[in-house]
């Protein structure tokens, strides 16, 4: 046997033994799909890191950024056509919905947990099905209510309202002055569910019981939460919010049209970076007048919904090993740390390790609340375990629409019944 023939035979035997193509046979380009970040500098930082990753991995890393509302259709198309990006960013608990199309990344999930401490509950719920990691948690976008401090002071609210009812009272005075609260209840991925779900929880209502099989929405608590929302909407809110997506409230706030809105920290960071242009009514930089507060408590407590983000390796990818190597590089303390600093608190880590980062010591006071905000979150589908069905409820906007129907005039009891019927069809 000649040397060349021997090498050929050995190579084929090796591939057969490994059950997969050798690394050199994999593609030399890694395609990563993410949302267009609300903090543009975060995307710039990733683009800056791409050549470094390419050098470290010996393969070209390419980022693609699309509108977050278009991610789900893109994921479905990619899985069905078995082609597309090697890594796709997942929001909420989407990994459960798309799990059959995702590579098991348990090794990475466990590595990150050991490397960076215990995960926040919602990061784990979003990306782990109890046995295996479906995606690797990346960060959490904390959602707080951004408000205009001086306008709140003007109506006598010198501290952030502690209860939802107090918020309604303050909002009512502000709306009378032409400075309403602005909140989306439209068909959009972030702010609408992040407002609707906590409102349901803070009144003591939930989608399903702990088993995740029995729908428990049709209760007086849920009806009460809707009645509050009806009054809040009419008394305190800009009623145009029904048609808003996740960008409208940013624009309205920065234009001085609304006094308060539930949001990530993108409003504050945009106002800070554009101080010379974004001014308040006295001509001062608006950023100095922006404060943050959590969603105030309802009768059952104070919960928020902070959106968990993760990265999934797609099963159809020919670059599985390369993709995993890249995620280990990108999520490592060094690289993630640089990206985390650029985010300035808009995106926090998926583990509590990042609460100790020096960034929090030098960050502006209005941003400090984001440091631990993610700890007070529940996952969609509460009180049940995370599941594809919960994602289906989210994707169909059932909970959001329940509130939207109520503020449009449907009786609270009827809106709850409508939503409960929809949930029963989904949860079977």
């Amino acid at each position, binding site marked *: 046997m000649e040397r060349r023939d021997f090498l050929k035979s050995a190579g084929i035997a090796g591939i057969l033994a490994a059950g997969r193509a050798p690394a050199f046979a994999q593609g030399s380009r890694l395609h990563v799909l993410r949302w267009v970040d609300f903090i543009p500098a975060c995307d710039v930082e990733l683009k800056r890191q791409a050549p470094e990753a390419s050098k470290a991995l010996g393969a070209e890393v390419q980022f693609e950024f699309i509108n977050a*509302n278009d991610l*789900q*259709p893109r*994921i*479905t*198309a990619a*899985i*069905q056509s078995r082609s597309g990006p090697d890594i796709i960013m997942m929001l909420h608990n989407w990994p459960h*919905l*798309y*799990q*059959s*199309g995702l590579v098991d990344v348990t090794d990475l999930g466990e590595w990150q947990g050991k490397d960076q401490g215990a995960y926040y509950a919602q990061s784990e719920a979003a990306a782990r099905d109890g046995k295996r990691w479906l995606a690797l948690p990346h960060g959490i976008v904390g959602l707080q209510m951004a408000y205009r401090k001086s306008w709140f002071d003007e109506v006598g609210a010198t501290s952030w309202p502690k209860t939802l009812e107090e918020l309604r009272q303050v909002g009512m005075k502000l709306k009378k002055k032409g400075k309403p609260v*602005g909140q989306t*209840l*439209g*068909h*959009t991925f972030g702010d609408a569910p992040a407002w609707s779900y906590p409102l349901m929880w803070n009144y003591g209502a939930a989608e399903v019981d702990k088993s995740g099989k029995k729908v428990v929405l049709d209760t007086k608590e849920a009806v009460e939460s809707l009645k509050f929302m009806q009054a809040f909407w009419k008394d305190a809110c*800009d*009623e*145009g*919010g*029904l*048609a*808003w*997506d996740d960008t*409208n409230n940013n*624009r*309205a706030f920065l*234009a001085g*049209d*609304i006094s308060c809105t539930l949001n990530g920290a993108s409003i504050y960071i945009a106002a800070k970076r554009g101080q010379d242009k974004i001014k308040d009514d006295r001509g001062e930089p608006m950023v100095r007048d922006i404060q943050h507060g959590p969603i105030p408590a309802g009768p059952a407590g104070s919960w928020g919904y902070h959106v968990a983000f993760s990265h999934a390796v797609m*099963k159809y990818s020919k670059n599985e090993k390369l993709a995993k190597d890249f995620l280990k590089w990108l999520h490592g303390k060094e690289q993630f740390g640089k990206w985390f600093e650029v985010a300035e608190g808009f995106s926090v880590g998926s583990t509590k390790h990042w609460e100790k980062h020096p960034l929090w010591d030098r960050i502006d006071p209005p941003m400090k609340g984001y440091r631990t905000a993610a700890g007070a979150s529940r996952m969609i589908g509460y009180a049940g375990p995370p599941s594809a069905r919960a*994602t*289906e409820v989210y*994707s*169909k*906007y059932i909970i959001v*629409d329940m509130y*939207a*129907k109520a503020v*449009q005039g449907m009786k609270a009891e009827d809106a709850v019944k*409508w939503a409960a*019927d*929809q949930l029963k*069809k989904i949860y079977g």
Partner: protein
Amino acid sequence: MKNPIAGGAGGAAGVEVALPHPRTSKVQARTLLENERLLAALLLAPAVLLLGTFIAYPFVMGVWLSLSSTTVGTAGTFVGLKNFGKVWNDSIFREAFWNTGFYTFWATVFKLTLGMWLAVLLNRHFRGKRLVRASMLLPFIVPTVLSTFAWRWMFDPTFSVLNWSLYKLGFITTKLPFLSDGAWGLWCAIVVNTWRGMPFFAITLLAGLQTINPDLHEAASLDGANGWKRFWHVTWPLLKPVTLVVVVFSVIQTFSDFQLIYVLTGGGPANSTHLIATYAYQIGVATGLLGEGAAISLTMLPVLFIVVWLQLRYLRRLENA
């Protein structure tokens, strides 16, 4: 001199090899092409291939999906008409179905009325007619997504230029809920669809108008018919076949409209502007329930089939009359 290889009828036996003569293959090809059936098949083949790939295959695939439990990433199994039953019991689907009918009916009525009016106007001679005709095509030329984005900004509940103008002119004291109220949202979509689809009606009807012999109008004028009577008794009967064809096309396009609603409202608020196509997309593509999504899509088929069949039947009666 004889070619010992190419052969021929008179070659010495056992020495010459019979190879096809180049002229023979040409003759054979010509004979084959003279076969009408074969030629027809050859000419039709590319079209059949294209139709099969881009229409028949997706359609059959859609039917299969609608009869299966396929979800994103899983093949699913045959479930018969279960998806259709589920869809029919879904209140959001029923709302979307109603919206689609309402949207199609009113958008078509407006497009036809305004398109006809424009066509009659453009059939007259006036200065700058060419410019007006060209500019009229603009809504038709601009990509739907882009133009709808512009409309969305105009209807924006907070920053609406329409609200601002109406307020400054003193017509309103509070903002109009263009896209934040379900009923308003659907009417806004009808307005945008009318704006976009009207040029198609106008241009096609204009082409129809120009085939009408002016002598007919002249004769009617001499008989004392006024403008309306001339339109109703001369223009309209002759324009009916063209109008029906345009309406058929418009109904198909409007009933299955997707882009406009997707960009303008995303089906919200609270599903009040969902059409069948946008709801099918939300369930099938965004939520990943491909079987259910396909079933929702396919509910358009019988409705459109009946509408188109009735209209074409009427058209045939007109032609035979």
